[in-house]
């Protein structure tokens, strides 16, 4: 999808030019994407040079960071540092960053174009249809509100609080949903995500993860602006 990359470049210009509101990710610190890029040498072994991450079947997937909002990325890094989000892999790397560095890497990843996701290839059409239903319309008898009503149109992210989940790796999405179910991840504001995750069956999780991973996000839709 070459076209996407172009749109991404445009979004970068618009995002930091027209809007005139630079990402103030951490306590009013302004992030500098150029400086941020220089700080990601330790990150690329997992999150890759283009921020695409990697689906790791049967293991711990590395999330796509490219195109997530700067505010969201920075808050996650702070949460790892301060133990509100616990993951032994990430804690060590988050701890290498001071507040300015957090703001800088957040600004850097936020302006990268959204990359394609992996995983979710091994499901049948009925499973995909269920995934689409949950993502776009929800299942209100179970009170599973549609993902896009919070994660924004196309599930591409809404504001700084609701990260883009379309075109995220299936393994990562499923892993996070299971973490919420088990109470291992609980840094979501107001428990908004936990409430939804806890109502999902294993089959629902498989379905929605596969469907979301297969969606393509044009950066014009993304939440990086």
């Amino acid at each position, binding site marked *: 999808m070459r076209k996407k990359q172009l749109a991404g470049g445009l979004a970068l210009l618009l995002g930091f030019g027209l809007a005139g509101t630079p990402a103030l990710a951490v306590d009013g610190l302004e992030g500098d994407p150029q400086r941020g890029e220089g700080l990601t040498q330790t990150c690329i072994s997992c999150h890759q040079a283009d921020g695409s991450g990697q689906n790791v079947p049967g293991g711990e997937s590395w999330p796509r960071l490219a195109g997530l909002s700067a505010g969201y990325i920075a808050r996650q890094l702070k949460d790892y540092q301060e133990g509100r989000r616990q993951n032994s892999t990430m804690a060590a790397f988050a701890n290498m960053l001071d507040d300015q560095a957090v703001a800088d890497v957040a600004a850097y990843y936020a302006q990268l174009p959204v990359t394609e996701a992996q995983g979710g290839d091994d499901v049948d059409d009925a499973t995909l249809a269920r995934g689409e239903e949950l993502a776009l*319309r*929800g299942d*209100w008898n179970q*009170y599973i509100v549609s993902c896009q*009503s919070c994660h*924004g*149109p196309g599930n591409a992210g*809404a504001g700084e609080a609701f990260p883009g989940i379309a075109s995220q790796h299936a393994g990562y999405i499923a892993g996070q949903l299971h973490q919420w179910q088990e109470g291992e991840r609980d840094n979501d504001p107001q428990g*908004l995500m936990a*409430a939804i995750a806890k109502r999902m069956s294993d089959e629902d999780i498989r379905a929605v993860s596969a469907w979301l991973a297969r969606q393509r996000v044009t950066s014009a839709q993304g939440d990086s602006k």
Partner: protein
Amino acid sequence: MKIRKLTLTTGAAVLLAGAASAAWDEYKPLFALGYAEPEEGQLVHIPPTLQDLEDAAMSPELKEVVRRGYDLFVDTQQLRGQHVFNDMNCASCHMDAGRQPFSAALWPAAITLPDYRGKNWQVNSLEERVVGCFTYSMNGDPPEYGSDTMLAITTYMQWLAKGAPVYPDQEIYGRGYGSVDEPEQEPNYERGKEVYAQSCAICHAEDGQGLKQDGQVVFPPLWGDGSYNWGAGMSRINTSAAFIKHNMPLGQPNSLSDQEAWDVAFYMNSHERPQDPRYTGDVHETREKHANFHGRTLYGTVREVDGHLLGDHDNTGEKDFLRPEILRSRTFD
């Protein structure tokens, strides 16, 4: 869970006892979330889903019109500037596209209208009910009676009522937004503001203007020009308290206490919004004339925190008229 036998429908063969308890089952997770269970004798109806529509033995042409109605209901913004002059979709206040109990489900209107409505002192058809929500909730200029748009929306509603008895004698389970017991303490602006900051602002924003992204409404505004006007049912504190208690914060129904729901409803409706289309030119006179409605709103009252008289203005929001011409009154004298 209490197992009670329900009189579902007297006389309607479609909802036999067997089908009825199946219907029950579908709503069980809702009871666990704090929604009231149906009471003895109440009419329970589970509206069909879009999948049911695909499978149904109906003419393809009719299915197409139902689909169109659904599409208009969830994306009413496609009528922006024509029939809609704020940021609302019908589905903004009617969860699950008008299927959900305690979220003003649509099917009850389809089986009980035409009926007398105190709001305009006359018998209203289903189309006139729709005109009402366009006029007030959408701050709009309703589609013509009998127009394609009107047909699509009312067909969608009637299809949702498929199999439910017309003019039922029973009370309807989960109609409207339900109700919330009167609060122990008078609803209060400051307390409401606190609830708002804690539970609502993350989506609807500190300033109540919600969130728009790339021109699309993600979280609808709760006051101001983009929201419902002073004539909308949601501006009544009792109605909005019930809506909020049973539907908000999104995904966490019944999580606020009754007091919190009243307080935040009071706070939300203590803000300015477009003028009531029934405005006579004088806010006190309008309030008086529609006392049965405004008795539960703050329209024409003074906001304590700053002495502002609510609704005392000529602002009609994005539209350039006050009252849509389509509103009609009739008498059979």
